[in-house]
């Protein structure tokens, strides 16, 4: 088996991964960066490109920002991480510009005044924007990866972290030629993004977001937190099927006079702009769940009243100028684009708010393993405010790379266990040309269906248990795979590996959701419809022990206790 050695391996080449790789390389480490797609894709490339800064208006400061995140995350962020994030939020955009990005400037060339936006849940204007949206971040990241002097391994799937008491490398499958590589590393940074694709087609996320990072971390023994908190955006496309789930907007995109109207013609929500994503998504989801839908299975976001007020018309203009209406125009047509007719909308899986538990230096609970970006958990809590993901991605990406490089420099050489590597490689080898009864894609679609139906926007004890049973059946089905042979671009072998990881991640999500007997943020339980601060101002942690997932709940630490 081909074996290579590095100081730092970064898994993932979206914003967090490329930033981590660049900063680790700057610190002198030999770095490899891995990605399932070409470099610079991930959800970073398809993002709208908004970053939350802080202190851009005189009344705002890190303390105020901290309060907004705590309110938006409904008290479940780790206060220390949230504090670090808000204190340094100003620097996140600086990291991106240091790598070649350019944020929108005003006439004088400054980032201030009218170019600063405000997403739902922020009390002050904090939003920097990118003239060519996330696509420009993607192109910049691709360039930066080349410029960073790191080894780029594209179109490979990391499927197992190696090491006993500390992570010392990993195994990866190459799509290009169907091999397994053993990669030694002093430290590994997970930057694999989130789990939106577990809900396909009800997601606006990219195909690679299969939650691999959560599964890799679990399998290595690391702890995850907040896995019950998947953020659903309230507004996505309901039809045609090709575009189901595609991003249409968040609360701030409804204009001051937008209203939600259910299938019976009843107005169910107004004044949405200041609300958080979860507050609005919940209303949409409950209406749909109650069957009060439009013929397309969504409900109606009536944006038309905005045209009758000056503020409403202004809201349209500013959305139009920043490209936030592109999707509506291209999918729903000119009249929808101009707000002359209502939009058919439904929630969509958007962001994994929980993830790998990290400390202030992005270290997981397992030595040698770091995490940054969407795959990590702790900064946000039960929901996330707009623009904070990308700021976190660049801020923590840069920090994790530096720390991972420093730790790797203090170590001798690392070597993955060759017997275990060989065993794993022959397991992959056995997939080629296997003649069983189930194609991986069929099992993946089953998993996605049960995730959306039972672990989606509204959940119940019964449904979550049914989901866990269905996961068992899918796992059993995966014992009998049908996979085509052939080395070149064998996507079915990749899917078989992804399926295992999706199952592990789905299970962690469902178990955490079952544990939390209340509704809060992105987690809505029909059987426990209220937020219950007396019992549930707690974080839920999940870890693998033997073959079992161990769940525990722990009170959110207070800042005083931490400092």
């Amino acid at each position: 088996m081909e074996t290579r050695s590095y100081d730092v391996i970064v898994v993932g080449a979206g914003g967090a991964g490329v930033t981590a790789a660049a900063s680790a390389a700057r610190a002198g480490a030999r770095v490899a960066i891995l990605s399932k797609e070409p470099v610079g894709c991930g959800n970073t490339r398809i993002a709208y490109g908004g970053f939350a800064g802080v202190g851009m208006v005189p009344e705002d400061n890190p303390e105020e920002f901290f309060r907004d995140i705590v309110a938006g995350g409904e008290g479940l962020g780790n206060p220390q991480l949230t504090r670090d994030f808000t204190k340094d939020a100003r620097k996140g955009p600086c990291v991106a510009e240091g790598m070649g990005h350019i944020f929108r400037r005003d006439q004088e060339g400054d980032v201030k005044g009218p170019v600063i936006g405000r997403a739902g849940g922020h009390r002050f204007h904090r939003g920097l924007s990118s003239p060519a949206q996330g696509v420009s971040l993607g192109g910049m990241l691709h360039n930066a990866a080349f410029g960073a002097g790191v080894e780029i391994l594209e179109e490979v799937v990391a499927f197992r972290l190696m090491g006993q008491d500390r992570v010392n490398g990993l195994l990866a499958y190459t799509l290009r030629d169907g091999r397994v590589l053993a990669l030694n590393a002093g430290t590994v940074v997970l930057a694999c993004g989130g789990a939106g694709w577990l809900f396909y087609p009800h997601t606006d996320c990219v195909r690679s977001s299969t939650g691999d990072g959560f599964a890799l971390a679990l399998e290595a023994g690391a702890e995850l937190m907040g896995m019950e908190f998947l953020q659903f955006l309230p507004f996505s496309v309901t039809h045609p099927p090709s575009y189901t789930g595609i991003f249409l907007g968040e609360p701030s995109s409804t204009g001051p006079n937008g209203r939600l109207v259910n299938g019976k013609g009843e107005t169910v929500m107004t004044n949405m702009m200041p609300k958080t994503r979860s507050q609005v998504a919940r209303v949409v989801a409950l209406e749909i769940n109650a069957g009060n839908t439009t013929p397309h299975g969504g409900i109606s976001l009536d944006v038309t009243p905005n045209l009758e007020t000056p503020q409403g018309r202004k809201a349209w203009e500013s959305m139009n100028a920043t490209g936030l209406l592109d999707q509506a125009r291209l999918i729903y047509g000119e009249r929808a684009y101009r707000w002359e007719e209502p939009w058919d909308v439904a929630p969509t899986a958007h962001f994994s708010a929980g993830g790998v538990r990290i400390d202030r230096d992005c270290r997981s609970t397992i030595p040698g393993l770091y995490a940054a970006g969407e795959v990590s958990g702790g900064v946000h809590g039960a929901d996330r405010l707009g623009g904070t993901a990308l700021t976190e991605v660049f801020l923590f990406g840069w920090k994790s790379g530096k720390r991972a490089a420093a730790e790797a420099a203090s170590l001798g050489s690392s070597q993955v266990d060759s017997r275990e590597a060989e065993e794993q490689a022959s397991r992959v080898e056995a997939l080629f040309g296997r003649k069983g009864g189930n194609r991986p894609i069929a099992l993946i679609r089953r998993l996605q269906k049960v995730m959306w139906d039972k672990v989606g926007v509204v959940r119940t004890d019964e449904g979550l248990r049914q989901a866990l049973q269905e996961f068992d059946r899918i796992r059993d089905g995966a014992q009998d795979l049908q996979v085509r042979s052939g080395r070149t671009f064998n996507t079915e072998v990749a899917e078989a590996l992804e399926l295992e990881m999706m199952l592990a991640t789905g299970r962690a999500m469902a178990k955490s959701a079952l544990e939390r007997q209340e509704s809060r943020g992105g987690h809505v339980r029909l059987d426990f419809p209220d937020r219950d601060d007396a019992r549930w101002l707690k974080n839920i942690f999940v870890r693998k022990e033997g073959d079992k997932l161990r769940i525990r709940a722990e009170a959110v630490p207070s800042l005083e206790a931490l400092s």
Partner: protein
Amino acid sequence: MKASIKVWRFDPDNGDKGNLIQYQAPYQEGDTVLQALLDLYEQEYPVCFRFGCRFKKCGLCAVEINGRPRLACRTPLKDGLTIRPLRALPNIRDLVVDRDPAFSVLLPYQPWPAIGEPPERLPRLTEPVEHQRLMACNECLGCLSTCPTYRHDDPSCGGPFQFVKLAQAHFHPLDRMDRPAQARALSIERCGSCLKCRCLIGIPIVKMAIQPLLEGAHQP
């Protein structure tokens, strides 16, 4: 309903030369070509193609549809379509092409600003409108298939994609390299009388990349 489409199949592991196969793809109102490929994949034919976001941002699903490069996610499905890989790049399997040559030819020219420590604050600067427009490039590489002279195996021959990348750097306010000279090393002169290249998502390549680099080429 069904749509009858032809899809290029090529399996290098079988010593195969590749051919077009006719399929009946399920059809629903509003379907895209990408949806048809996904449906075929799920049903029984593991045809290989790249995709990512389903809505024109990731740039991964560029293929040739009836002889023209298009994003599969933005092309309506119709009866009688023929779907092939991008002709400008080596075919790896089915609709998948080797993207590497499009990037590796650029590496000697380093079309990116140097990465330093992040600045303490965002500097005052003006981003040229060209830079804004050019950064919308989703790197789908479809433009290369509209260029009559691009050759992926000739390191002295750039195509529209490479000139877009050089022009991105050229218009970055902090870039200091002589990008027009680099464009000359990639034989941009041959573009002067051609200008046939097209961007799949509407970036004015000629006006914002080729012409500025060509004109820059005449400066001392």
